[in-house]
């Protein structure tokens, strides 16, 4: 066993860097982050105030990396962080935070609180305190191949079904093609119409692509946990596959955290830049649109809104492509009052939807999303993240709302202008 309280503290010392030190130095306890956090606004419980979620780390920073804190420690004015402190922190860092990063957008001194919460999770995981469900998901991902634990065979079955339906041949392990496509488990198991949809779109656009039998899972529980070594193992599997197949572009699917892991955190956890580029599927589609290779027909006339997934939009920087594409196929697209960087989280991200004990809380905080949707009077909510889609569907059902939830890729496929004979 390499996890222990000492290892946890050790990791927290290891990860404290200049930004974190600047953040802690600057926090004035103004409490504005609470106003941005669904867990506070929907429960009214001040314990969920975002900056409180990293209090053990703040104490370690103060005691270990500032002269003032060292003096305080010597004088007995501050107590060292205990194992109990870390245990108590699990609820705040894992079980009531989707790492959505909305707090970061309002902090007057510009603290990136989620940046810190991710590091805090890293310490807790090293202390052996990561939620069991996330640990199990990590094991499944690395041992069986996917987050949900299904083997390659399951995906192959889905691919065959899609081939049959569309009549398009779908590659596995085809080298030298344009794109390597990854999928999230949720897509394979629940929203597998995406495979056929993409096959058609890519065929019409003249794009060559393939799946990899070694790396088809985009999801990364290692990232949610903050177990960077495990996160790196999952990333490396993809990097290796892309390198072996000589593919220059990797597509992260409609999954927010996967995009964050592959696009932004990946090179940093494996310690080297990629020899390929990474795109969110929606970025790829928008590029095809720009090049005139994606043609659609017809417009949805119903009132449609879009839910920006936190990790892709607010934290990943994909904000405009989805709007370009929506405008191609809808005539009545309505923005949510808070959108893009300031969108409210669905409440299920950051690993929250895998943690059973957090379920009531996830249901409760969905109230914010419900309010947002209700005030728009729409028939459909489109999104581009399987986790969001899942949470939205569950929330909508729970609240008996008459709203349809769709993936953006799927919506586009519905309107695809098919010129080439299949």
């Amino acid at each position, binding site marked *: 066993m390499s*996890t222990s309280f000492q290892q946890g503290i*050790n990791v927290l*010392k*290891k990860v404290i860097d200049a930004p974190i030190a600047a953040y802690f130095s600057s926090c004035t306890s103004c409490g504005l982050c609470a106003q941005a956090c669904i867990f506070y606004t929907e429960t009214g419980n001040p314990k969920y105030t975002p900056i409180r979620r990293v209090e053990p780390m703040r104490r370690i920073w103060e005691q*270990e990396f500032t002269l003032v804190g060292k003096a305080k420690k010597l004088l007995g004015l501050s107590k060292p962080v205990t194992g109990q402190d870390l245990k108590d922190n699990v609820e705040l860092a894992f079980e009531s935070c989707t790492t959505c990063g909305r707090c970061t957008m309002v902090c007057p001194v510009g603290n990136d609180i989620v940046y810190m919460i991710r590091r805090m999770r890293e310490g807790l995981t090293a202390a052996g305190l990561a939620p069991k469900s996330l*640990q199990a998901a990590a*094991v499944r991902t690395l041992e069986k191949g996917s987050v949900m634990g299904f083997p390659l065979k399951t995906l192959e079955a889905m691919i065959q079904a899609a081939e049959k339906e569309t009549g398009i041949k779908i590659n596995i392990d085809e080298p030298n093609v344009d794109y390597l496509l990854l999928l999230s488990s949720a897509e394979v198991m629940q929203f597998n119409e995406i495979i056929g949809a993409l096959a058609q779109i890519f065929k019409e656009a003249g794009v060559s692509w393939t799946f990899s039998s070694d790396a088809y899972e985009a999801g990364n529980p290692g990232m949610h946990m903050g177990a960077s070594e*495990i996160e790196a193992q999952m990333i490396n599997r993809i990097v290796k596959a892309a390198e072996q197949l000589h593919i220059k572009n990797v597509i992260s699917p409609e999954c927010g955290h996967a995009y964050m892991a592959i696009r932004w955190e990946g090179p940093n956890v494996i310690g080297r830049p990629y020899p390929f580029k990474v795109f969110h599927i929606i970025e790829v589609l928008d590029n095809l649109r720009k090049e005139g290779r994606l043609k659609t027909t017809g417009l949805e006339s119903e009132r449609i809104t879009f839910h920006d997934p936190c990790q892709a939009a607010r934290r990943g920087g994909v904000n405009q492509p989805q709007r370009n594409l929506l405008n191609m196929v809808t005539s009545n697209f309505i923005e949510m009052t808070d959108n893009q960087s300031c969108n409210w989280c669905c409440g299920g991200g950051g690993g929250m939807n895998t943690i059973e004990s957090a379920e009531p809380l996830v249901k409760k905080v969905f109230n914010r999303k419900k309010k947002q949707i209700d005030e728009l009077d729409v028939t459909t909510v489109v999104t581009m993240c399987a986790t969001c889609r899942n949470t939205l569907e569950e929330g909508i059902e729970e609240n008996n709302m008459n709203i349809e939830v769709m993936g953006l890729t799927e919506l586009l496929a519905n309107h695809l202008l098919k010129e080439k004979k299949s």
Partner: protein
Amino acid sequence: MTNKNNLLAGELERLGISRRTFLKFCTSIGSVMALSPAQAAVMAEKLVTVKRQSVIWLSFQECTGCTESITRSHKPSLESLIFDFVSLDYHHTLQAASGHAAEQAREQAMHDNQGKYILIVDGSIPIKDDGVYSTIAGMTNLDMLQQVAKDAAAIVAVGSCATFGGLPKASPNPTGAVSVSDIVHDKPIINIPGCPPIPVVMTGVLAHVLTFGIPELDSMGRPKAFYGDSIHDRCYRRPYYDRGQFAKSFDDEGARKGWCLYELGCKGPITHNACATVKWNNGTSFPIQSGHGCLGCSEPDFWDAGGFYKALSTGTNSPGQWATAALAAGAAAGLASAYLNKSSKADAEKDHQPVTLEDMGGKS
């Protein structure tokens, strides 16, 4: 009427000064002292009935400016009456006697009026090196002050040197100059600071002592009647301060328009004196009216309170140099701390064991 020659009334008669004239004098003094006009009339009545007061004037480390101020400022005028009337038994600049005769006059007066004479002091008292820096007739100022103060009824310290140490006390104070109140603790002391003090303030205080006794004093022993307000409180340019209209240099538009001199270093806001109301040279003007800021000469340590031409809001030395030095020192300390931080981060890195799948309950 036997004692009439010993009373001011007789003196008035001798000089042919009417009571009406004397009332006018007392009214003017009362006005300066902010006595009520009724009190001025009482003062006039009382003054004519007091006896000639013995006064001993000791001059220590001083420039004689205070004496000049008092003696020069008056034409044969009413204020000089007070001085004509008191028996100035010793004043080594003004008295005719010299040498042993002068000292004898002092000792005689001390003997004849034991416990009743008023001691006026101008100049500070050097106490470093046993007070050798200033002696009179072989006696140090310190010894003389202690000797004369012992049997005095009251002491009037005239000028900023006697009241607060003044210029001789200015840093680095080579003679160890101190004020009268630093030496004498068991007698009533009236401080009349200023460099020099306003003449009418002196006569006013003396008139008050002779008639009503010791006037009301502030925490620094100054008569409130003259030192109760700051120059700024009574300054005719005050409205410009309140409006934020300041002269930026001594010959700019603002200076010509008579705007506030705060930015040019005026110390009026913290200086308590009557210059702005009583004025100088027979009420002609005072520094601010002449276009120059107040130096703050009637306050302690005015010589060391920063530059005369630096605004009151600035530091008295150069904090800028401190800032630079502190930044450099802080950088050094910061680097030392950074070194410690780096090594503890390196230790953490070294002690770190990767989290493995095994920790998660996996196989490898």
